[in-house]
């Protein structure tokens, strides 16, 4: 696709999304233009809105990168959600186990524990795929349920803080475990996410590993003939993806929620999955899309509060965005085809 065609597709997608959202607001009996403008305002209008948006974008960014990493090898992982939960659990375990650590040690160790947990959760489907050729999509899907239920079991059971009087959650994190933040919710995690995206971009576009992964993604058998190790890369990339989601999980817990609760994620895993596929697993494209989707979620949250639109609006608008983004390029291609190129 040439740059010009890219822009045409982008503009058409945006226009289609705006039209569909307008119809949605009309159906709710709200003035579409006003709603749209407030949405943008609530998402990006001032420092506070922006920080809300960034807070929502952060876990989406981590989950999208977690899907993109194995995605570059042609694997379809839907496991970001579960890996996020496991990262949150192992990270929390460290904090609960060593609450006295100084901040300089606490945060790196907490992140490392989360990364290890997430990596282990990604390693399982990775090994099953590499050694036994078991479909990674199914395994990651199943492991999501295990992780979410495991987190619930912990906070309803052994990890419940008695001080909560029955409320299922751990004790609040000590201040040393809360990542530094500039403006309320603009925290260290976001910086880590952006740096990770940049590093992954370099890794996947430059150097020998990048070529090996491209060859294996394009034709596994050819890679095998010329000595490339599919099993190694499946395992390594699945584990790396898991580690990234795991870091995203503990950051969400430590920076936003302050303690481990049964529901850490508002479907960030699935949203991240869609973002990664929209970006075709390109980290630099994931960055703006994650921001956009974060803005949409934050904006519609605020809209719900101030304009009395239903709570489901955020999900519906998000769905409209993904549907148009996936459908419009195909429709354009088809229209071009029947137009005789």
């Amino acid at each position: 696709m040439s740059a010009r065609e890219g822009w045409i597709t982008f503009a058409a997608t945006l226009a289609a999304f705006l039209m569909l959202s307008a119809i949605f607001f009309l159906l709710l009996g709200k003035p579409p233009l006003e709603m749209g403008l407030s949405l943008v305002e609530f998402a990006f209008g001032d420092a506070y809105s922006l920080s809300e948006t960034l807070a929502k974008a952060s876990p989406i960014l981590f989950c999208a990168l977690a899907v993109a990493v194995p995605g570059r090898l042609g694997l379809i992982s839907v496991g970001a959600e579960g890996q996020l939960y496991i990262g949150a659990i192992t990270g929390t375990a460290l904090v609960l186990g060593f609450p006295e650590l100084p901040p300089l040690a606490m945060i790196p160790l907490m992140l490392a524990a989360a990364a290890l947990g997430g990596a282990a959760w990604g390693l399982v489907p990775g090994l099953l795929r590499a050694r036994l050729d078991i479909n990674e999509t199914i395994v990651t899907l199943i492991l999501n349920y295990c992780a979410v239920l495991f987190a619930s079991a912990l906070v309803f059971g052994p990890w419940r803080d008695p001080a909560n009087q029955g409320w299922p959650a751990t004790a609040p994190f000590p201040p040393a475990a809360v990542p530094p933040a500039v403006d309320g919710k603009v925290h260290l995690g976001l910086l880590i996410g952006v740096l990770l995206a940049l590093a992954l971009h370099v890794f996947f576009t430059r150097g020998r590993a990048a070529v090996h992964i491209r060859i294996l993604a394009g034709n596994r058998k050819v890679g095998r003939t010329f000595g490339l190790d599919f099993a190694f890369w499946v395992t390594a990339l699945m584990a790396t993806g898991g580690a990234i989601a795991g870091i995203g999980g503990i950051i969400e817990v430590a920076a936003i929620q302050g303690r481990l609760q049964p529901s850490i994620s508002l479907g960030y895993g699935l949203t991240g999955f869609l973002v990664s596929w929209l970006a075709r697993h390109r980290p630099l494209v994931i960055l703006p899309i994650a921001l956009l989707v974060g803005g949409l979620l934050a904006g519609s949250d605020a809209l719900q509060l101030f304009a009395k639109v239903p709570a489901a609006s955020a999900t519906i608008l998000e769905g409209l965005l993904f549907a148009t983004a996936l459908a419009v390029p195909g429709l354009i291609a088809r229209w071009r085809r029947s137009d005789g190129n």
Partner: protein
Amino acid sequence: MIMDREPLVRFEHLTRRFGELAAVSDVSLDIRAGEVLALLGENGAGKSTLMKLLYGIHPPSAGRILLDGRESPIRGPADAMRNGIGMVFQHFSLLPALSVRDNLLAAWPATPAYIGRRSKRAARVLDRLSVIAPDIDPERRVDTLSVGEQQLVELCKVVNLEARVVILDEPTSVLTPAEAQRLYDFVLRLAAEGRAVVLITHKLADVEACADRIAVMRGGMLVADFAKGERTTAETVALMMGRPAATAEPAPDRFAGRPARLVLREITASAAGHVLKGISLEIAGGEVLGIAGVAGNGQTLLAEVVAGVEAPSGGDVLLDGESIARRGDEPHATPIGYIPEQPRDNAVVETMDLSANLRLRALAAGEADGAYDVAALIRRFNIAPSEPTRRAGTLSGGNLQKLVAARELGVPRPAVLACYPTMGLDLGAVGTVYEAMFAQAAAGAAVLWISEDLDDLLARAHRIAVMRGGAIVALVENDGTLTRDRLGAFMTGAPAEAAA
């Protein structure tokens, strides 16, 4: 021949561009019922693309297609099938994990939602199979079939559609002479039933056997369209190539008798329904050893073991005394030049460009790729279109085969393993590939050459081994006294003494 009737299909000034490139350019051609039209032309001439326009895979950029005199309503393969047009592609579309029977059922429009194992209706899809390929057991999984057998199942699938127009894209390139003969009979029967058959081919034998009319394409354009017999074979070849055919047939130098370089020692292996039962062969540097055999007798597995794609369960492969067999799942890069069958699946990365595909071995090994002069390889093997930045997946079937040959034969190799290396190539390219293969031998490589084409083997190999049932059943010196019939007898299992 029915010349006076309204044509079933009429192309009017048809053009199809891919970016700058006009794959089909201003073609006007009729396809008539009851007639076999042979569509000839060099690799990349636009034959497959022209037929894909009719089948609705690509829409034309200009011009129109008339079906029964009306503008064709076909927008995709499903439309094509509804309108009675069936196509067997150069690259197959069978589901490898399903049985032959299930593949045929899945493609049959009249298949009910539920069908039992012994259903009478299910049996009907197998009727044609028993005519075209009586030897294929319908319960076998498709991934255990040889390429030629898959080709026949594809054909059966299309014929089951009761298509009025049957398009066959290079159907005989992977068939044994016996299979090809059955295909000819079948094609003639289809035409006699009043169907139109389009036969895309590079083999003049196909044209001889069943064509009524011949259309020749070159560089996207239709350069001739005439009834068979109106022109001589030499004229037809000249039309295809744009020049008279070269007369020199490439053959390797006489074999001087050097020590063994590539040694296969007691190889046993099993995979996907095939077995190797202790295969031993020694190929000397400079020698061209042909392996003849009906496809599906273990050749594919043997090739993959020798090339280190599959691990043998016993025995060894030695190159200059060192083992080059794969052990377990450890990464293993083959040191020998290797042209596998079905290059689109087994030898190229379609998502990468020509240049990367030509340098693939160096890229995978992480070495400097100085040995691969991409521009020179493209020129020498006449790969078209020739831009090194073009995506390999957009090449025509023959040009893809040339790409693999260029990579594997274009730089010096200690040994070469070539499986059907000229499959789908036009006459000019066949010469180039053979020349390159024999140049490797002349430079001291041990060449192992798997083929079904007995005439080619007899004309060119120094020695010929015959494979049947996963074993070498004969190994004979090709000293000029060897005949097709004797080889054929080995292949089909006549007693071995017949050779002595």
